[in-house]
């Protein structure tokens, strides 16, 4: 298992390097002039050219790429924002905890609500509870989360005055962002859990357990659910990774200064350093999230753990044979 984790960590190096080159190249070729944005529309072309020169934006592609890779992976310096002159590392360090809370909270809520919904729907297949739950899940997937966010604000902040409409100064300020951000996750998890549970509850071992007279609840929660959880956990890992980078709409609506909003502003301003650094950091975090998901799967399902061990043994055997 340790070797497996180490291998996966090593595999992240070419992935992150590839992502870095890709995002640098994309930003290099994307139209839009950072110097013009910085100086505004009233600046003359000469002023813009002078600023481009001083920022090193006139250098050829390979010169800039090598400079960027050296700075990032040899000097371990993510650089400073062109627009604000603030080191990107500082800004990410300040913003990451907020995005992490949002992503963790949303993923947890998606699991806590979505999985029971899915289980209930599966257990009561083709009954009204199944139809209602799946209709809600369908509604959740179809509803844009920014719209839901605004509706939640209208209800809980403006009309009922129970929760703050924006800001995260108090713990209550997190409730609406997390709820609106988890909507798609809840719906996806509910649908996935239902589908997985339906597969499992019709399998032979469940029939055997039932026929042995085990209580229904025990069959469902102890025997069927752990087997149905594998796709659910796999999806949860992906959703969590996506939420780390993809919560910009929620962050914008609720005025949460997180990474997503920072990244989008940087893209709009062509703030190359910020975009590149954010994407690199997010690619590392996403890879780690997927790795953690795989480890969690091994913990949940002994068969997967066996697979990891078996892969290691096969490699050992190959080495011996060689």
């Amino acid at each position, binding site marked *: 298992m340790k070797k497996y984790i180490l291998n996966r960590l090593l595999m992240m190096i070419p992935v992150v390097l590839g992502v870095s080159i890709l995002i640098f190249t994309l930003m290099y070729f994307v139209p839009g*002039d950072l110097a013009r944005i910085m100086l505004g529309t009233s*600046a003359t072309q000469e002023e813009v050219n002078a600023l481009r020169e001083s920022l090193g934006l006139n250098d050829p592609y390979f010169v800039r790429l090598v400079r960027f890779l050296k700075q990032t992976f040899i000097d371990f310096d993510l650089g400073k924002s062109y627009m604000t002159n603030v080191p990107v590392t500082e800004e990410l360090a300040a913003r990451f905890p907020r995005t992490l809370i949002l992503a963790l909270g949303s993923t947890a809520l998606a699991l806590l609500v979505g999985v029971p919904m899915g289980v209930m729907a599966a257990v009561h297949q083709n009954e009204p509870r199944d139809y209602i739950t799946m209709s809600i899940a369908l509604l959740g997937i179809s509803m844009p989360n920014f719209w839901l966010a605004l509706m939640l604000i209208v209800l809980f*902040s403006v009309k009922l005055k129970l929760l703050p409409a*924006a800001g995260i100064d108090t713990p209550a300020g997190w409730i609406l962002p997390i*709820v609106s951000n988890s909507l798609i996750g809840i719906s996806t998890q509910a649908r996935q859990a239902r589908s997985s549970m339906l597969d499992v509850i019709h399998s032979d071992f469940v029939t055997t357990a039932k026929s042995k007279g085990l209580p229904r*609840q025990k069959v469902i929660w102890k025997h069927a659910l752990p087997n149905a959880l594998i796709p659910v956990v796999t999806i949860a890992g992906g959703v969590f990774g996506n939420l780390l980078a993809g919560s910009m709409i929620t962050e914008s609506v609720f005025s949460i200064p997180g990474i997503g909003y920072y990244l989008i502003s940087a893209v709009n301003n062509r703030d190359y350093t910020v975009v590149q650094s954010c994407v690199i950091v997010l690619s590392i975090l996403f890879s780690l999230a997927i790795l953690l998901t795989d480890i969690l799967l091994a913990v949940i399902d002994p068969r997967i753990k066996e697979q990891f061990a078996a892969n290691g043994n096969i490699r050992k055997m190959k080495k011996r044979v060689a």
Partner: protein
Amino acid sequence: MKRLKKLSASFLCMTIMLGTLAGCGGSDTGTAGNASAGAASVQSEGKTKITVGVNGTTESIGPYITTSNIIKMIFNMFYMQLGSVDREGVLQSNLYTDFENTEDMHYVVTLKENIKDNDGNPITAEDIAFCYNKAKELGTSSIYTYYENAEATGEYTFEFDMTTDAVGALNQVMSSVNIVSQAAYEASDDEMNVDPVSCGPYVVREFTPGSKLVIEKADNFWCEDMSELSENKQANVDVIELQFITEETQLTIALQQGTVDAAIDVNPVNATQFESDSSYKVEYKASNFFYNIYFDCREGHIFSDENLRKAVCYAIDQEEVMYGATQGTGQVIHALATPYSSDYDERWDTWEYYPHDVEKAKEYLAAAGYSEGELTINLMCQFEQSKPAAEVIATNLQEIGINSEIICPDSALYSTYMDCTSDVWDASIMFYVAQQIGASSLNGQFNAAVRENGMTFSGISDPTLQSLVEAAISEDTYSRDTYYECQEYLRDKAYAYGLYTPQLAYVYDAGIEEIYIDSNGRFIPGACTYSSSYAVFDN
């Protein structure tokens, strides 16, 4: 267990359905929220406080970062500049006692002797020269190119050379460089990005990038007699909290809930709901920016034909465009200028400025050699906000048989495309920010001399226009008449056509007697007039 399941299911359904249906109700201005408007501020030590919702954000408050209009407004609250331009366009002193133009474009500035920053560091000519040179070195604003060679020549005397004699440029140079002490700047390990030390009347107490900024009246402010400072450097309230709320609806909700005491740049339509509420005052003020349509006038291009430009101008219904873009809250303009500027000439209001006339437009179109339906143009707009204006214009043009394709790139792309040599657009809707001296905005729009290719950004190369522009923007020749003549020529040649100027809506607590908007259209909470009962707290 079964009951629990049913309850859980019901609760889930209720929550999601309520959330979904919440928006179906009518609008509610929220009287309870309003009741707490002033009192919503968290107070300490009986200090007065105003919380302002700002429709923008900043990640840094370092003195020399790239600044938008919103960031400039924020910086004006706690940074000090040598002087400030008042609402009549006159430079008022903050830090200098005197300045004189000794030769050609060389200026000598004498400083006040008792200036200190909020850490107690004295501010001398060396510090001022450092700030001017640092700003120029970083080059984050085009204003920093208007001067060179800032040099301290005595403890309280420093000199610099201007690189341009454009009208208003000196005022901009004197009022745009944020002053800090060299010692404090160099002692800061982050170039003052988060924790600046200014020499203004307010100190930064808390800054959360992208979220909020709290500034408080400085205890040891160097200037004891505030009348020695310009109007916009007054400190009439103890604590100012700025909440960065970039989402338009949230800004309105924050007002309704009393989370903020004032909000600027509120959507005018949303602002109307506060008009009937005695807890608030609503004011609409002319903004200092105005929207125009520019034509790609390069030789050989379709719009190099004056008749075609005039056909488009006559086809456009300004009232409809203004209504489409501002829901009727803006103002139609009759020149490439806004009444906000102090040199706005009332004679322009009576001009016959291409009134909407389809028949006349068709005549000019025919004179340009085009038949109806023959021509398709690319119409570019600067922001999503100006897209409704573009749509109305496209409809107007359709009436005379010109088809339009609307292009609305993001701001970064727009700044690349704005030069007509990019070949992306034939006509472009663009806003321009007018300074207090409106003539200065001609420099960026129509001064071909500042560009290598000898054309304006919209491809105009006209010696007559160039001489008129130079006369209007040069400090020596600038006058009401030269400015008027230039506008008149621009109108006659239809090189560009003024559309409208939006109004900005300010919604604020009724306890504020009068809000202060500076010469650049920026709201300054410290300079507002507060009633004696406004938000004073005992604790």
